[in-house]
């Protein structure tokens, strides 16, 4: 038995506890370096091509523009890793913006209360998507496509005939400038990353997204877990919405339009699998930075928004192609 296992195994056991955390770090770096290299390369390209692009201000504005969408995309990352899909987060974003706007402008509630109401509303809408999906077994694409239009309608009804602007100064602090949104973005990414890698529920997202049936047979409560992942997606969409309402100093139901697509694009460009089971928020941050660098860089080169959209579209397809190509055939 001994000779046999020795000859047929790829590695010979060398148990050592000290190398473990280093191994994990090395492993994560190997997974992320390609997208990181792509980001640096894209940044350097624009750096060479455009002189005004070379300023620190530009770099900060890339981070600043990325931050709100990146927060939303952290939620999308969790949902996609678990093998789910939520197309309605852009509309959840709109509803939360309007709700927070009403709470502040019409009811003059304290900022903290308005924020908590907004976050709770986002989490509720996300959880509702998940609940409908796991119990009706209607595909996530359809449930959340329905959510996309339904929540949008709710946002319009809530906002109609209301002037949702001129919020208290303490609220405007949240989204103004680059520093606060960036800090919140990194904090959200850190917490979401810790959730995915360190907690039981977070680890189950990879299991459920990788092979739902194995997870179920192993005793994972797949339905309950899925509802939580959608709830996190809604919660982070709400966080992003609150920052944007604060930044703009007004709320309107048209905000958030196609944000879900930008988020999915960033997640996929970063290297999280659209098919579930693989990915992480670090990748998503890089993916979002790649997208914003391209958008900002192209504008500095005088390329209009229409061509920027074409460029992003092509990159999304390439990113998914890469995901399909490297995935082993089942």
């Amino acid at each position: 038995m001994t000779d046999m296992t020795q000859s047929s195994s790829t590695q010979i056991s060398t148990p050592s506890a000290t190398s473990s955390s280093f191994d994990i770090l090395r492993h994560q770096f190997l997974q992320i370096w390609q997208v990181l290299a792509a980001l640096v390369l894209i940044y350097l390209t624009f750096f060479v091509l455009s002189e005004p692009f070379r300023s620190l201000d530009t770099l900060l504005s890339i981070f600043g523009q990325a931050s709100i969408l990146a927060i939303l995309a952290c939620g999308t990352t969790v949902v996609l890793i678990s093998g789910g899909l939520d197309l309605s987060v852009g509309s959840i974003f709109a509803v939360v913006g309007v709700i927070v706007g009403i709470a502040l402008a019409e009811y003059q509630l304290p900022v903290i209360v308005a924020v908590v109401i907004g976050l709770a509303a986002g989490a509720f809408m996300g959880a509702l998507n998940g609940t409908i999906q796991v119990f009706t077994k209607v595909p996530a694409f359809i449930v959340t496509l329905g959510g996309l239009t339904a929540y949008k309608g709710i946002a319009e009804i809530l906002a109609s005939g209301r002037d949702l602007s001129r919020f208290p100064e303490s609220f405007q602090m949240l989204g103004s400038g680059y520093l606060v949104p960036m800090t919140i973005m990194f904090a959200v990414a850190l917490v979401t990353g810790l959730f995915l890698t360190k907690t039981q529920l977070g680890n189950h997202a990879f299991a459920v997204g990788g092979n739902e049936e194995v997870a179920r047979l192993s005793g994972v409560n797949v339905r309950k877990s899925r509802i939580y992942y959608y709830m996190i997606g809604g919660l982070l969409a709400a966080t992003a919405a609150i920052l944007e309402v604060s930044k703009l100093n007004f709320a309107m139901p048209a905000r958030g339009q196609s944000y879900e697509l930008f988020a999915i694009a960033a997640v996929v460009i970063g290297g999280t699998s659209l098919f579930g089971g693989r990915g992480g928020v670090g990748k998503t941050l890089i993916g979002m930075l790649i997208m914003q660098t391209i958008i900002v860089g192209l504008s500095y080169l005088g390329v209009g928004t229409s061509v920027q959209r074409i460029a992003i579209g092509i990159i999304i397809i390439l990113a998914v192609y890469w995901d399909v190509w490297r995935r082993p055939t089942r």
Partner: protein
Amino acid sequence: MTKQDADKIILQARGLSKRYGGVVALEDVDLELRQGEVLAVVGDNGAGKSTLIKALTGAIAKTAGRVEIDGQEVHIDSPTQAKAVGIETVYQDLALVDELSITKNMFLGREIKRKDVFGRLFGTLDFAKMDTEIRALFQKLDIRIADIYREAEAFSGGQRQAVALAKTVMFGKRIAILDEPTAALGVRESKMAMDLVNSLKDHGLSVIMITHNMQHVMNYCDRVMVLRLGRLAAVRDVKDVDGDTLVGLITGTVEDKAA
């Protein structure tokens, strides 16, 4: 182990049936598993082997039948309940999640949480402890997989099966149920897997094993039950039966005298 212990019935199922609408997949099958034995379940494709195991472990809802463990009736309606009464199952093709590391696969659904405040509040996991337990177990079972942080898909079929079997040793309190543990394995890897199955006995587990390999039945099993068209065709001690008779019982050319 005394003779008396060896004959002790640990699991007993009576009248197990499963119908899908009008289609009968399993009809009135009885099963007895004795302490410390390896019981083979053989039969042609569609004979009801997988259905029997799934009904027994709560992976599918059975239409009729009762299950007793140590003479006490137990209700197993989900894989979680099966685990709670001490039954570990290795399903064919459904043993491991490709995307998860060996550690995460071994402990999937039963992760060890940290004892500190983070563990209690957020359910953070104690990977160091899980790694240590796996390394100790792999050493005991002579499974040579060093890189337990790598995803399961990086390993060969034999190594994956070894991990799945190790999982039954780690968590199986009484009974291991194996659905074709050597399917899709080469000759050498099959031998490795079957040696592991054999060692399950040493770890106090009684084993039910579906197999298509008559040689494995002869070399590794104590008793064999034959299913044909969803019904129990025969149960024999392996020492009282030869390969040809067994094939005859499977295909129906030999009728069971005892029945």
